[in-house]
């Protein structure tokens, strides 16, 4: 078995962090530098372009496995993952002597396939599939399709690399950010001899807060804390270096092209400036619905009309680099005052995110509840002395979110789940009352215990009113508390509203159908 397949299987075989780090270290010890670089690239989302379409992938693999397309789709609906479906279907067809590709060999193969004419692509890919064992076939498919998440956070990878190379964690985290690829960079230059001028766009790792777990009173003197709104936008980093402006999202995606208005506004910043803030749909000093931002984030090179219809701004809360000097070790109150100097109140589209000056924690609690009126999701509490750290850390920064919205709703449709849950009804549609009728308004998953899922499943099987394909209409009887993060008007939904991140909070066995909320009550949350 190739060393990288061993690595991924070891990572999968345990859910203990220590085992995973051990497996990563073992890989770093024995792997070639190019393979290590590819591994880092894959973990940080720097994969080669997808060489074929999703449809081609399904059709060609079904053909290679000798199953008809409908049967392939049945299998997929049970397995719930195309890459895995293909690996499982091909396991009986593959060669008895699978080829052990190194990670970089396989990646070069992937790039090569991407450049072939379609007819040849199919043959080469089918042969490649059949030359892999089940484990490498699955991983190869994952790398080909993207969405590659296998049980290791970037933070864990950084830790292992830091140990392996005897470099500090923040240094590694910084070095693996920005614009690079195994095709343009060497392991040594990227990780051990970085030249700071080499990549002017390179962002810093974001510092992330934990949810507040204690009574805020326990944080001590309120004046020692910088209190800000927790905006419901997209975390971003704005960089101006060498007369160029770069905008990064927290997902480490360069999104400059989507926001030419913001890029232009940031040209006035001095070179060697890096700002941390929240990208928001924003106009006349107030937040607009998140949906507008969503439109912009998916649009490269937006039209003037698009920009006018979905105006955006950045609410800036931190200064990471000032005059070309890494400013992250400075204390927050120093960074903040320097930031205020830099931005002031004048710059269009780049606003200083306000801080709240409150006399005690009771007032802070009040401000938190009122934050929703500003479309914020609560407050951020940041120690005035805190340096800007990297990754998610406890202690200095806390997010104190407002509780999500809640509504009691009735289960009206159920559908079977995927994978192990394929025999259970786990996907539910919920309704609220409107003029003596139940109107559906959202789907929601998860949130129930296995035992509850079994009980709901039994209920569904015994109380089916109608079947349309996979969907069953059930007797309206069960009431659930649905939680969600936001709500907005929607013409596409029968109820006229759409929810963000709906989920089941609780099964309200204490409530009767009549006790469920009404559509009017739901709309009041708009």
């Amino acid at each position, binding site marked *: 078995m190739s060393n990288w397949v061993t690595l991924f299987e070891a990572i999968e*075989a345990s859910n203990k962090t220590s085992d995973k780090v051990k497996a990563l270290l073992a890989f770093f010890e024995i792997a070639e530098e190019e393979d290590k670089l590819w591994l880092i690239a894959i973990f940080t989302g720097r994969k080669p372009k997808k060489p074929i379409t999703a449809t081609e992938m399904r059709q060609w693999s079904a053909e290679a496995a000798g199953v008809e397309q409908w049967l392939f789709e049945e*299998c997929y609906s*049970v*397995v719930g993952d195309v890459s895995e479906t293909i690996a499982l279907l091909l396991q009986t067809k593959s060669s008895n002597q699978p080829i052990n590709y190194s990670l970089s060999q396989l990646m070069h193969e992937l790039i090569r396939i991407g450049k072939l004419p379609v007819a040849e692509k199919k043959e080469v890919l089918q042969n490649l599939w059949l030359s892999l064992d089940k484990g490498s076939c699955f991983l190869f498919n994952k790398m080909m399709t993207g969405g590659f998440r296998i049980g290791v956070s970037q933070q864990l990878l950084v830790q292992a690399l830091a140990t392996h190379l005897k470099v500090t964690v923040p240094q590694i985290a910084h070095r693996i950010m920005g614009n690079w690829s195994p095709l343009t960079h060497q392991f040594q230059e990227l990780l051990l001899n970085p030249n700071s001028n080499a990549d002017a766009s390179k962002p810093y790792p974001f510092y992330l807060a934990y949810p507040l777990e204690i009574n805020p009173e326990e944080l001590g003197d309120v004046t020692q804390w910088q209190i800000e709104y927790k905006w419901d936008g997209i975390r971003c980093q704005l960089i101006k270096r060498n007369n160029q402006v770069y905008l990064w999202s927290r997902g480490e995606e360069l999104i400059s092209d989507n926001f030419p208005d913001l890029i232009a506004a940031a040209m006035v910043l001095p070179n060697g400036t890096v700002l941390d803030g929240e990208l928001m749909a924003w106009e006349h000093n107030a937040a607009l619905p998140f949906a507008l931002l969503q439109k912009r984030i998916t649009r490269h090179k937006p039209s003037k009309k698009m920009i006018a219809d979905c105006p955006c701004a950045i609410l800036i809360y931190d200064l990471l680099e000032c005059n070309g000097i890494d400013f992250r070790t400075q204390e927050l109150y120093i960074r903040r005052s320097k930031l205020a100097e830099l931005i002031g109140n004048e710059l269009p589209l780049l606003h200083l995110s306000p801080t709240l000056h409150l006399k005690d924690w009771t007032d802070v609690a009040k401000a938190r509840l009122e934050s929703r009126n500003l479309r914020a999701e609560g407050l951020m509490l940041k120690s005035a002395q805190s340096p800007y750290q990297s990754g998610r850390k406890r202690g200095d920064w806390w997010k104190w979110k407002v509780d999500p919205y809640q509504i009691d709703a009735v289960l009206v449709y159920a559908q079977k789940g995927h*994978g192990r849950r394929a*025999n259970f009804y786990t996907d539910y549609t919920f309704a609220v009352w409107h003029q003596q009728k139940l109107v559906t308004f959202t789907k929601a998953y998860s949130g129930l215990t296995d035992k509850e899922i079994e009980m709901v499943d039994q209920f569904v099987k015994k109380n089916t009113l109608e079947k349309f394909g996979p969907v069953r209409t059930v007797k309206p009887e069960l009431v659930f508390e649905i939680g969600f993060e936001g709500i907005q008007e929607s013409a596409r939904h029968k109820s006229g509203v759409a929810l963000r991140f709906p989920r089941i909070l609780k099964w309200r066995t204490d409530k009767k159908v009549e006790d469920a909320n009404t559509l009017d009550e739901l709309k009041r949350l708009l």
Partner: protein
Amino acid sequence: MQEAGLIQLSSKGLYCAEGDFFIDPWYPAGKAIITHGHSDHARIGQSAYLAHPTTCSVMKHRLGEVNTQALNYEQELMINGVGVTLFPAGHIPGSAQVRIRKGKETWVVSGDYKCHADGLSEPYVPVTCNHFISECTFGLPVFHWQPQGEVLASINQWWQQNAVQGLQSVIFAYALGKAQRILNGLDPSIGKIFGHGAVIAMNQTLHAAGVNLAACQAINQASKEDLKGAIIIAPPAASGTPWLNKFEPYRTAFASGWMAMRGSRRWQAADRGFVLSDHADWKELNHAVESSGAENIYLTHGYKAAFAKYLQSKGKRAFELDTLFEGESLNHSSEKELEANV
């Protein structure tokens, strides 16, 4: 199902009117022939039970004092003019396929089965018939079982690795069948082997019925010292319960056919998943359907619709049956099993 055939699907289960008996009924129904001792097949409340002797013992253990009549494999019993014969199903000890025939009509109810020998259950034999009622818990081509020897070797390897690191190993497996299959495959040179109370009680029942089992000690007799590097076989219902605390530090594993899918491995939140099933995989299902020679195939458990459509595409007459059988279960083990011993 065919009009006026020898076997009908009633609201209580599969029913033979001419013989006036049910097969694995899921509600109290009357006289019942039971394919095997799993709880979705052998249910409480029947006036009389007919089954293989091992299954009779298992039912007495699980259901209490029930009225049983034992029938050995391959001996035909006439019931109201209908011939009833049991054939090994290879699923668990005592599991049977039921052949029912009268005149030119022959039916086989497979119960649960697998075609490869596991060294524990009486090996499956193909039975020819006109009408074959087959389970298809794993009726999709994604399911393909590795040879049992390889799976058991990887379980032993996992146990060994844990033991070397000073960890106990807890493996979750259904108390009837799977637990014993694993037990007989464990390498006792690695360490001591213990069983959860439910497993031990089942072992005693099977042992008394003449099933050969490797040694396995009751966990409640284990001292802290005994437990060092040991493996504990427990029913899935014990997973995530405080019962496990006394094994700290430990690693867990599930053994089930569902472990073939990453999604279910994650859902179970065990450290490891071993793909070990007591049901037929895709190849075995097709083999069984083929060797039955049946003109009509009726499907229960699992991916009925897909398997029926597949068989139809191969020119077979295949139908889905709506039954309440559960297939291979990970956490349906009865509460009783847990209570048996903590």
